[in-house]
């Protein structure tokens, strides 16, 4: 019988057994985990999934692990929110937010990919894990490694926000600041991975790590009552999550767990770092690496490792891409917070701002179901939002002073009306 799992080159289809491998020996193309779906057809059912605990491991048959999960037993199953107030604001009929800003334990979608990568690292016998990171991955690797009792090395750009440095160091990894941007850090990590016997999750465990991102898509489908949104808008940094959400949708269709509604994938990037969106708009086959300059630091990757596959997934689904200027990104962070009570980081603002552009341009019809993927939490990057506010009023501790303040505010701005449905 064919093994349930194997690795296959994305370019030349050469197959390999499951092993710590990232590229094909024949053509140097990236390898990807493939599954024997025939074996899963009757045994991976909605009933089985629904009977399991509400975490990302409820989809374990479609994740590349052999034994019991060793990490992230509380990760995943984040809220899928029907965004009625935001939908009214944008003039669309059906809008959902998949909110990984509430993911456990480090409040970003990275807890999904790291849960799978750390489990796989332990299965392969690695004792040290690490990563190249723009912040969220650093948090997640450090936290999951601490909980699993593994050593961790985390490499970040030297100018990473202080909140992300502190939020990583608290878990006790060796954190190293590298002079340069994320792409420089990533290049160094490729050399580190060749020299040291470590599992750098987004470098030499990449084929396994990226599979964890599929759980974001599985959850969207299950939480929508086993159906797919017609349009999914996803941020693009290294290019992990968008092709894997597309893969998750196709796997669910193939296994008969959802109907095929021809789901469309759309890419969101910051205008200051938009190699993929630019290549889509220019209808080029290859993207040009860029030097990032944007407030959306967590998605500031100018040379995305899986960028080509993002373009492929977007094009094959009939989707498109949009990029947002810094001011639009921060406006969208504020809009999401004011309408839905969700504080996302600039990456989430980018995704929403791009979704708005895609709606306004008609690429996303207003009457079709839309899901916007929110991948990180705003509390990690409060400094970028600080500048968007004026000083809060300071008054004496007297009720008269408070009443004066409220009355003058009422005169200046009438109270907001709640959206009713």
């Amino acid at each position: 019988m064919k093994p349930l799992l194997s690795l296959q080159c994305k370019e030349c289809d050469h197959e390999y057994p499951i092993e710590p491998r990232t590229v094909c020996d024949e053509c140097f193309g990236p390898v990807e985990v493939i599954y024997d779906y025939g074996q899963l057809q009757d045994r991976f059912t909605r009933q089985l999934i629904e009977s399991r605990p509400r975490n990302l491991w409820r989809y374990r048959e479609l994740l590349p692990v052999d034994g019991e999960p060793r990490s992230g037993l509380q990760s995943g199953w984040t809220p899928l929110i029907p965004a009625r107030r935001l939908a009214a604001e944008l003039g669309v009929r059906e809008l959902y937010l998949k909110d990984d800003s509430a993911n456990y334990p480090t409040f970003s979608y990275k807890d999904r990919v790291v849960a799978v990568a750390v489990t796989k690292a332990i299965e392969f016998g690695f004792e040290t894990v690490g990563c190249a990171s723009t912040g969220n991955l650093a948090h997640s690797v450090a936290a999951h490694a601490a909980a699993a009792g593994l050593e961790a090395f985390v490499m970040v750009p030297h100018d990473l926000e202080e909140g992300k440095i502190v939020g990583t160091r608290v878990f006790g990894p060796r954190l190293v600041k590298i002079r340069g941007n994320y792409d420089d850090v990533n290049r160094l990590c490729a050399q580190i991975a060749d020299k040291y016997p470590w599992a750098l999750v987004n470098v030499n465990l990449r084929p396994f790590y990226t599979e964890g991102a599929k759980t974001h898509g599985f959850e969207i489908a299950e939480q929508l009552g086993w159906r797919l949104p017609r349009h999914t808008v996803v941020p693009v940094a290294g290019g992990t999550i968008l092709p894997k959400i597309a893969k998750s949708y196709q796997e669910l269709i193939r296994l008969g767990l959802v109907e095929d509604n021809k789901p469309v994938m759309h890419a969101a990037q910051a205008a200051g770092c938009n190699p993929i969106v630019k290549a889509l708009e220019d209808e080029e086959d290859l993207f040009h690496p860029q030097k990032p300059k944007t407030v959306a630091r967590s998605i500031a990757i100018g040379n995305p490792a899986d960028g080509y596959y993002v373009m492929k997934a977007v094009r094959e689904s009939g989707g498109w891409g949009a990029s947002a200027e810094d001011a639009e990104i921060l406006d969208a962070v504020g809009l999401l917070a004011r309408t839905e009570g969700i504080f996302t980081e600039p990456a989430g603002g980018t995704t929403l701002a791009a979704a708005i552009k895609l709606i306004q341009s008609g690429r996303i019809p207003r009457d079709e179901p839309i899901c916007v993927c929110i991948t990180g939490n705003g509390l990690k990057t409060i400094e970028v939002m600080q500048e968007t506010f004026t000083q809060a009023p300071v008054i004496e501790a007297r009720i008269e002073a408070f009443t004066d303040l409220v009355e003058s505010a009422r005169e200046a701005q009438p109270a907001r009306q709640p959206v009713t449905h």
Partner: protein
Amino acid sequence: MPKTEKRCWLTFEGGCQDEPCLWRMARRFPDVVFDVRQASVGKAIGIMALKFEGEQTDVEAALAYLVEMGVRVDPVQGGSMVAG
């Protein structure tokens, strides 16, 4: 002299995609053997995956010469690895 094998992604853009960079490298370093494994070349950008073999100093000098000509050289990240 120790022999070496290096696997690299080469990116040609910013003008060097219109220049015969590999031919020039081959002329200057005739003992460096290179093998094209994958290539995608457009008008504005070209990307190739190559394996280089030869004396370590020759291979490193050949790669440095490509960089000097404006070619971006990135290592192919690992084949199969051993945990430790």
